[in-house]
């Protein structure tokens, strides 16, 4: 059995939480006591049904206001798959929480209220999903019950969305489904109200979407998290490098290079739980032992020799800014990339994305909360980076405020400046 991680996104009140409640309810994955708890809260909708959004809106403030504030994670499984769902808030003020949920998803469900069509938040969440490299998008046109299950309304919204997607989204796999989250049409059961729709219902689609090729198995990247040195009699000379293979594969006998130092060696063994493995691959957490005594510590990355890689201190990236204080050129921040933390400076803000017009605003001197921008960054220590579009696991980084230590930015590498080019530029 495999795992599909997905997020529900879209504008405020488009029915994200209700949809998840419906998915859980119609697959019989809600326990009686949980159902009783929401029934006894007394909140019902117009039809007198219990309000299923209460299953995920678990915070006091959320229940009082009837909105989602922070991501809720829910779990369910069918004989085909285990699902991990992140229910995101639609409100623009809580975009950073949506970004949190989206970052680990392989699929994004974007809800659109059939009465309102594509909104600013629909576009923002779609763009964020696309920037974060989520390979599969499902656009659910919801509340079809409120537009008389009208095929024309559906077709118009699909057209509008396709037009927007063609100009701005990288995601290749986009599916459209007309639903009513409230009544359950096309969620787990086929809708009898929309015979004109011939595609799969939502659950069928979620069970079928391929996830196996979402990991990059080509570029071997092993950031060392921790060095195991038992110093016991039995394991006197043992030195194991513990970490997660974030992409690629590793086997005994592979010739490796340690970055940024450039030292080389050969893999003596690949271990998991004390057992040797023939081969390990992403996303496994393992221990590597090397043939030679090399100096390796947390933050170093073990790569394969044939890859001929380079580390760099300068690169360009797209950043989702998630702090109330605006970002300005020249800002000094901490940057965490996998197991490495270093100081960084934002040398230049190249442009800001306007999610309404979809234009790039070129002369942006500051970036506000929830803005998406492209920046040029320089770090104090060299990093082994990949372009995010080539390797999601090694192309993302976070920015941390130097005094409050809160996470203020999510970055995705777009291009890397190498030493040789730097010299050339001088």
């Amino acid at each position, binding site marked *: *059995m*495999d*795992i599909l991680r997905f997020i529900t996104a879209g504008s405020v009140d488009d029915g994200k939480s209700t949809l998840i409640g419906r998915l859980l309810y119609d697959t019989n994955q809600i*326990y*009686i*006591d*949980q159902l009783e*708890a929401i029934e006894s*809260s007394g909140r019902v909708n117009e039809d007198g049904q219990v309000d299923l959004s209460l299953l*995920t809106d*678990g*915070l*006091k*403030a959320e*229940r009082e206001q009837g909105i989602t504030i*922070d*991501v*809720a*994670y*829910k*779990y369910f499984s069918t004989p085909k798959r*285990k699902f991990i769902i992140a229910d995101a808030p639609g409100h623009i003020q809580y975009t950073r*929480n949506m*970004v*949190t949920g989206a*970052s*680990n998803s392989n699929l994004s469900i974007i809800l659109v209220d059939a009465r309102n069509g594509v909104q600013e938040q629909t576009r923002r969440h779609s763009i964020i999903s696309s920037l974060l490299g989520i390979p599969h998008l499902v656009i659910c046109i919801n509340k079809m019950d409120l537009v008389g299950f009208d095929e024309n309304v559906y077709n118009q919204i699909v057209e509008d969305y396709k037009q927007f997607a063609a100009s701005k989204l990288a995601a290749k796999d986009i599916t459209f489904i007309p639903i009513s989250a409230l009544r359950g049409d096309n969620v787990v059961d086929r809708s009898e109200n929309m015979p004109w729709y011939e595609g799969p219902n939502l659950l069928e689609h979620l069970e079928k979407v391929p996830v*196996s*090729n979402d990991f990059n198995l080509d570029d071997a990247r092993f950031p060392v*998290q*921790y060095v*195991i*040195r*038992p110093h*016991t009699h039995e394991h006197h000379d*043992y030195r*194991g490098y*513990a*970490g*997660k293979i*974030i992409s690629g*594969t590793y086997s005994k006998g592979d010739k490796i290079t340690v970055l940024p130092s450039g030292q080389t060696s050969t893999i003596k063994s690949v271990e*998991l739980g*004390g057992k040797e493995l023939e081969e390990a*691959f992403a*996303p*496994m*957490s393992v221990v590597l032992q090397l043939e030679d005594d090399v100096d390796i510590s*947390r933050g170093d990355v073990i790569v394969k020799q044939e890859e001929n890689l380079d580390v760099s201190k300068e690169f360009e990236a797209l950043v989702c800014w*998630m702090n109330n204080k605006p970002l300005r050129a020249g800002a000094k921040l901490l940057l965490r*990339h*996998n197991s490495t933390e270093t100081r960084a400076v934002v040398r230049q803000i190249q442009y800001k994305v306007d999610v309404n017009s979809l234009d790039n605003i070129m002369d942006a001197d500051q970036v506000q909360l929830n803005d998406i921008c492209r920046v040029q960054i320089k770090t104090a220590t060299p990093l082994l980076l990949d372009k995010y579009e080539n390797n*999601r*696991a090694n192309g*993302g980084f*976070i920015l*941390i405020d130097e005094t409050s230590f*809160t*996470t203020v930015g*999510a970055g995705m590498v777009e291009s890397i400046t190498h030493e040789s080019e730097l010299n050339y530029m001088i």
Partner: protein
Amino acid sequence: MNKRYLDYLDQLEAEAIHIMREVAGQFQKPALLFSGGKDSITLVRLAEKAFRPGKFPFPLVHIDTGHNFPEAIQYRDELAERLGEKLIVRNVEDTIKKQNLSEPTGRYASRNGLQTYTLLESIEEFGFDCCIGGARRDEEKARAKERIFSVRDEFGQWDPKRQRPELWNTYNGRISLGENVRAFPISNWTELDVWNYIKREEIVLPNIYFTHERECLIRDGKLMATSDFIYRDPEDEIVTRKIRFRTVGDMTCTAAVESVAYDIDTVIAEIIESKISERGATRIDDKLSETAMEDRKKGGYF
């Protein structure tokens, strides 16, 4: 099927090991909160996978209410002994004396809430900057919202409105003096995932997780093991039933379920059939109000 395919349990395991190693790499003085229950027993197995043949980079810490199942305490001591890892036990009893707290009384009297005081005291005593816990997001609706690295203020309080964004598998463990972090490696596991893992790993559990006859009293329709610690009414109905525990915590707030499940397979079959959630079936502290868990977490609870 692709040869390089990782089954869901292996994926969950890899994620949990990664989180534990991040804790070891990012913090000066971490600790693993060990309760003797199946979730923390699972954490210990994951720590073995993360750090063997080395030692754990943290001690096991048990906040003991003094009202635990003797079977769980015995298991705890034997486990620490067998692993050769350091076990620190701090007693709620001592905190009550030292801080002059009043012992809860009445029908629902439990020291469960007082654990927070002892935990904060221990964090201060040892200077722990990160405590690893076995909480899962599927347990409860407030937990469903918590980050994997959850920052707590000086008073151990969780502020759901000020949670840091948490991107990919990049965890930000930077904190200011006085703050600390709670890290939850099995956040994404469900009750059933934990049992399937226990089965796969052939982990031996305390026998109270399996069916046995026990004297219980019936409180609000739930079966509570009789003990010296539990409040008794003269009219309490006392029964002897075949039961097991679905969660193992303090005896005063952990209810039993009627069960004939005698091994891991029969327990798994029972959970799949169950119509009641783990906490709903076994905890009486959550029932006291609609947002009981959120309130306790804001107050510094695990």
